[in-house]
Structures are given as structure tokens and as C-alpha cells.
């Protein structure tokens, strides 16, 4: 085990994938000489050469579109979208090509493309640099969508994503890039939990709190705080947003009878809506209270100085926990 930041773990995962399979090509803006604006690809170009770690011209649709062509030729492209808010120019190529080509060709052409996205807020950034677009991709059949919450998952799941024969949209919470954790760099990715499986980050008995990405740590903190008040929260880190590991989520809700889902993204038709709806359908008779969502508001991501009011925090999570326990001392906050 080695202690690494999430950023370094991702770098190690990319290096390992590049070393293991010469069909892996890493592409994006500023990822070569500079090593990426977050340095996630630091040193990779000098180690693997400019043919394998490619600085591209400034055009996201072309980055993804040429990745599709590389996949036609048998490569495994890993593309970096510089910030979450810059994925939209590539949306057409992602939705109409990356997601659909395997279906269109009835399996004759595979799209083993990994789309890495430095993601979400909480870092005091400018407009368009703190977006949570994951629901768009979850709603798009043909894609797999994952979100990591710690260095070990970052390392392992990135390698799994690159190894997957399906396209994977890979969300990296940028506010955790500097967070440290133990990483087993030698573990076989086949032995590790598959990227489609959720993780019970903290067991509990009273309330199931489902979340992903940077919010996992907030949820764990909320669980610790709640413990003092005698409430036992089970925190589930989804890891995979599409497909969702409902086996793990339903098992928990069947035990607790209460569900809170938290994410930074806007609420309307977000991932939380899907989780609440699926659980309402699948665990109706187990639910003891109305499920609750703690989410960003249905607004454009606000300016940096105000972002903390938009983001779920410990108080808002605990408020929702109170509500789901029927002891809401504040007005309902989220609907």
C-alpha cells in the first residue's frame, strides 16, 4: 500500500494502463507538455511519447470524434475533458456515436473509450468549471457512468474503465484531487470489486444515505455527527451511476426503511430522482417515510462566493435525515 493523492492515483492508473496495453492512447487539451491543468497526466508524455499521450487542438467534439475513429482502428482512447463544463461541445459525438455505435453495428464495432471529466464544485472556480452533468450521461443508454470518491477507487476503477469494452464516462471530483488515501498499486483489477458495484462506506441501521463522488465524505461526516445524536446512518457510495447497483441499495433500504439521496447536481430529473423512484418502486413496502433528496438547487451553478449555499453540506444532509426520521425541526428544504 502506498499513500497517494487522488490525482497521483489517477496518474498511476493511466501510466499502468499505458504500460500494459499499447492500444491505449491518452488525448486531450494541455495533457502533454503541461501534464494537464490538474497535472493528472503529469510525466506521461515524456514517458510514453507524443503518439500515445496526445495534446490535441482545442475542440472537444473533435477530441471525442477522433477517439471514435481510433476505436474503429482498434485503439482504446482515454480522453480528458478539461473541465466538466466543457463536455457539451462533445455531446453529440458522445450521445449519437460513442453511446450508439455498438448498438448500431450489432456488436461489430466496440467503443472502449474512457471519457475522464474533472468534475463538480467546491473549489471556488469560475463559471462552467463546477458543473455536475452526470445525469445527462446516465440518461443516455449505451454509456457506463462512474464517479470515484477516493484514491484507491480512482486508481482501480480508472484501469477497469479503460479495460472495459464499453464506453465509460469517468467522473473525478476535482475537490478531492489532493485528498490522500492508501492505494494498493499492485492489485489485480480482476480481483478488485467491479466498477459496477456500490460500496457500503459505513454501515448503519436507521437511515440509508446514498451518494457518490465528493459527497461521500460529507455523508460520512454527517453519519459521524448523527451518531452523537443516536442516529445510525448507513452511507452508500454508489461508485457506478449507470448501472446503479440496486442490489446493495435495496438491501440497505430494506433494513433501514429510510432513504436519503444526496448529490451536488440539480434535482430535476437528476440521479437522485432515479434512485428515489427505483427504490419507491422496488422497496415500497419497506419504506417507513418519504424518501428525501439533498441536492443542488435547480439553478445554474452559482458564483464561487455563494457556492457553499448550493452544495449539500453536513447541515442539509442532517436536516434531511431528521425529516426522513420524522423529526424535522426545520422546514422541509428540498422539493
Amino acid at each position, binding site marked *: 500500500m502506498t499513500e497517494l493523492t487522488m490525482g497521483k492515483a489517477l496518474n498511476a492508473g493511466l501510466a499502468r494502463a499505458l504500460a500494459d496495453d499499447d492500444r491505449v*492512447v491518452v488525448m486531450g487539451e494541455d495533457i502533454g507538455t503541461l501534464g494537464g491543468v490538474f497535472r493528472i497526466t503529469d510525466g506521461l508524455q515524456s514517458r510514453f511519447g507524443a*503518439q*500515445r499521450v496526445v495534446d*490535441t*487542438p482545442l*475542440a472537444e*467534439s*473533435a477530441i*471525442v*470524434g*477522433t*477517439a*471514435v*475513429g*481510433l*476505436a*474503429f*482502428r*482498434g*485503439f482504446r*482512447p482515454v480522453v480528458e475533458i478539461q473541465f466538466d463544463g466543457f463536455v457539451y*461541445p462533445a455531446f*453529440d*459525438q458522445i450521445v*449519437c*456515436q460513442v453511446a450508439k*455505435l*455498438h*448498438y*448500431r*453495428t*450489432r*456488436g*461489430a*464495432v*466496440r467503443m*472502449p473509450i474512457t471519457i475522464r471529466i474533472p468534475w463538480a464544485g467546491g473549489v471556488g472556480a469560475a463559471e462552467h468549471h463546477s458543473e455536475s452533468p452526470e445525469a445527462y450521461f446516465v440518461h443516455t*443508454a*449505451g454509456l*457506463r457512468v462512474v464517479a470515484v470518491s477516493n484514491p484507491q477507487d480512482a486508481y482501480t476503477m480508472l484501469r477497469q474503465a479503460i479495460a*472495459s*469494452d*464499453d464506453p465509460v464516462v469517468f467522473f473525478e471530483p476535482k475537490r478531492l484531487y489532493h485528498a490522500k488515501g492508501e492505494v494498493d498499486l499492485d492489485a489485480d483489477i480482476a480481483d478488485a470489486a467491479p466498477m*459496477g458495484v456500490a460500496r457500503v462506506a459505513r454501515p448503519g441501521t436507521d437511515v440509508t444515505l446514498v451518494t457518490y463522488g465528493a459527497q461521500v465524505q460529507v455523508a460520512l461526516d454527517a453519519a459521524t455527527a448523527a451518531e452523537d445524536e443516536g442516529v445510525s446512518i448507513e452511507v452508500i457510495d454508489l461508485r457506478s451511476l*449507470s*448501472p*446503479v*447497483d*440496486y*442490489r446493495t441499495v435495496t438491501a440497505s433500504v430494506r433494513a433501514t426503511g429510510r432513504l436519503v439521496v444526496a448529490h451536488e447536481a440539480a434535482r430535476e430529473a437528476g440521479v437522485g430522482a432515479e434512485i428515489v423512484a427505483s427504490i419507491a418502486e422496488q422497496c415500497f413496502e419497506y419504506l417507513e417515510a418519504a424518501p428525501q433528496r439533498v441536492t443542488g438547487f435547480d439553478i445554474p451553478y452559482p458564483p464561487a462566493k455563494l457556492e457553499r449555499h448550493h452544495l449539500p453540506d453536513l447541515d442539509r444532509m442532517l436536516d434531511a435525515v431528521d425529516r426522513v426520521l420524522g423529526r424535522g425541526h426545520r422546514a422541509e428544504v428540498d422539493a
Partner: protein
Amino acid sequence: MTSTVNEAAAAVQAEPVQLLTPDGERRTDHPLAASVADIDDHALARLYRDMVLVRRIDAEGVALQRQGQLGLWAPAEGQEAIQTAMVRACNDDDFFFTSYRELGVLVARGAEPAQLVLGWRGEVFGTFDPHDLHVATPQIIIGAQTLHAVGYAMGVQRDGGDQVAVACFGDGATSQGDVNEAMVFAASFGAPVVFVCSNNQWAISEPVGLQAHRPLADRAPGFGIPSLRVDGNDVLACTAAMRWALERARSGEGPAYIEAVTYRLGPHTTSDDPTRYRTAEEVALWRTRDPLLRVAALLRGRGLLEQADAEADAAAAEFTAGMRRAAVGATTRPPLAILDHVYAEPHTGLDRQREQFAAYLAGFDEEAGA
């Protein structure tokens, strides 16, 4: 000011390159003529048969659609020269990324009759394995395939192959961001890709003059990609242009761009009514420039036409009969097939939907049985 301002090089190439006149005369005075000198009368007869076959297949497609056997058809009539020349100038493993209208590419690459009808019939999307024909599933999103071609060519650069990728698109497509980004990437990386714009004068109801006030071939040089504007109804000029472009690309000189000036003689698709936006005179004028007529005229002069026509007729009769059989005899896949091939690897969400859908469908059987 004129010495300072950049204007597109207006006079470089006023007229599209033509090596075979509408009267069927070969032009040998043109600098490009030498590059197709090896194409003798018999080779021309073969190209002619290819083109006639495409025309017949196209007509059969339209007929099958009119008879309700196909949901839609996008006629290629009038564009057979560039479509045929493109493929014949290539190696078999050069890879094509085309739009929905490049019927001639599929035919020249040996697509089976069923592969030409089952898509338009609505049975499947892709009708062939792209790796078999070295042709990607025809693209409907205008221009998207040009980026795929560039990416493929970048792959060739990386694995040391000698293939060239060919990006085929229309005049309307030149306005799309993707097509321009494709030129940026191709030029930046010097990728072995040939851009072939079939300027058939119309993007559905929009004349090419709405997309651009200048020849489309003028666009590429500013991106650092040399271009040629050719008579797209002249199979020799198209061949010469392709050879020039392929040669450059294969020898590592990077991308090239061809504008093939042609005409869509038919409607945009069988759903379209072109009389709403263009005149009968315009169509009549272009009929005089028919790519088949000029080769026929030449072959007639050489006494080769009759045999070429007979051979083409025979091939077309067999092929179109196959199309008809494939359409009429098509069996639609079972309902559960819609859930296949969404992913390459197992997917718990979809597996669950499949199970439930199967049970639902089984419920009907039970009801029927009960």
C-alpha cells in the same frame, strides 16, 4: 489594399477539372490526365459497368420503397462517378466513412443485396460488419463521420499501417462544426485522410449557395489542406483526384481535400418533393451532364458499349432480384432483440429489463395458451 488583404486565391482553378467531356471525349491536355493514362477502354468499361450497376440498384431501391417494402431510400442517381471512382482508386483496406448517400461506395466494396435494403427497411441499423467491407456504417448525423475518419487515420499513424481513411460528405455538411474540426485535426496531425465532398448542389431544399458563396474546395487550403475541385460526374477526373490525394496521404504528406461537383438528380429521399424548391430546367440541364452518358458515348465510339451494357444488365438483374428477395423475405427480429448489443459486457440494469420484458412477453403467450 489588395496587396495586403487575404482573399481566397480566386483564379487558381476557375473550372472543375474535367478529363472526360460530356460528349465522351478524353482530354489529354490537362496536367492530371497523365495520372489516369493507364485507364484504357476496357478499364473504362469496367468503371461503366460499376456505375450502371449502382444506378440500377438505386432505381430498385426507389421502386421497393414505393411499393412499401422499404421505409425510405436516399437516391444516389447522378453521383455514380465520384462514388465509384473513390473506391476503385483505393486499396481494398482503405477505410471509408460515408454518409447515407454513398450507395456507390457500398456497391463497389461488394455489399450484398440484403445489406443494401435491410437498413432502409427498418430491420436493423448496420447491415454489415464495417471491418469486412472497410466501410463504417453510413452516417446520418451530418458531418460526424469526418471526425471518425480523421481518428482512424490517426490510428494508422500509430500502428504503422499504410491505409488511408476516406471521409465522404455533402455540400451541406461543410457548414457543420465537426467537418471543420476534422480539417483542423487532420492538418495538425498530418493524418492520412482524404476528404471527399460530393457537392451535389443541394442540401435537401437548400442550394449550395446558402452554405457558401465560394467554391467549397477553397475552404481546405486555409486549414493547410490542399484541395482539388473536379467534375464529379467525370469518372476519370474523380479517379485522378483520388489518386493524387491517396498518393499524398499514403506517402506521409498528410490530408487532401476533393470537391466533386455533381448533382443529385432525384429527390433528397423518397419522402422529398424537389419540385418545391428547384426547376425542371435545372434538372434537365444536369441530365445532359449525366456521368453515365459520357462514358457510354466513349464506349459507343469504341464499339464496347453493347457488351458493357449487356454485362451490366445481367449483373443488375441478378443483384436487384436479390434485393427484392431480401426485402420481401425479410423476417423481423423478435421483440427481445431490441435489448441486444447495447453494451459489449453484461449490464445489470439492462439485464433486469430484459428479464422483465421476457416475462411480460411470456405472459401474452400464456394468455394465448390459456
